[in-house]
């Protein structure tokens, strides 16, 4: 069975992990309530998408 001949050095390990960083999600701003939302989705805070209310929220702040 194929087995590693040597322990990976700290350098090798670091080089392997250099491409593993997490990426922040692309967040856009809701044009109605100005809170952050994911693009192409209904705004979770005000329930609107492209000017139409899809989800009625329990209470609106303004």
């Amino acid at each position, binding site marked *: 069975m194929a087995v590693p001949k040597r322990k990976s050095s700290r350098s090798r390990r670091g080089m392997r992990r250099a491409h593993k960083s997490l990426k922040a999600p692309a967040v856009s701003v809701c*044009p*109605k309530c100005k809170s952050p939302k*994911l693009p192409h989705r209904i705004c*979770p805070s005000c329930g609107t998408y492209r000017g139409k209310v899809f989800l009625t929220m329990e209470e609106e702040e303004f």
Partner: protein
Amino acid sequence: MRHRKKSRRLVGKWEHRKALLRNLLVALFIHERIQTTEAKAKELRRLADKMIVLAKRGDLAARRQALSILPDKAVVRKLFSEIKDRYAYRQSGFTRIVRIGPRRGDAAMMVIIELVTDKLEHKPAAKKEAPATTPEAKEKPAAEPVEEVKETEAAEAKAAESAPAQEEKVEETPQAVETAAEEASEAKEEAITAESSETTKEAEEETSTTSQEETKEEIKEESEKKA
């Protein structure tokens, strides 16, 4: 092999899948708007369009085809009367799918699928203009005292005439909401200075629909002052 198999799998057996999609179809035509997962919605969209096309054909054969698919006669009746007439202007694309977000539990993307009855605002780019216009709206209250002095009775008459007309425009063409709302808000502010309480109510309603909350707040504040 996947050759010539169009449908997503969704659930294991085809009988189960067929039953699932039929039930979803009935639910969609009854409620007009249902919440489901993205994969189911995208599959449902195909069938819903086919059903509405059948309904638009409208003859007895089409009705029987629809009855063979939909397990509910009342829904077929609705489809062949109400929904058929509603989409006389439209060839396809009778449904709209809007994403909500991942479901807690299995992180499935949830969507709302609905029968299209209205138009959404067209571009996010057009919405970016909205924050740009709000500063102008902010400046307006400062300029108002001057307008009050200059335009007295004539302005009142204009505002009273123009305001209802622009409301109708906004309702009919949601795409033109941006421009119409700007004009309307200008007109509304004049109307408010004319101390007509009815138009302020209308203004509040309209601005809420046009999703310009800053102008809405201003108008509210002004109406409170007047009151």
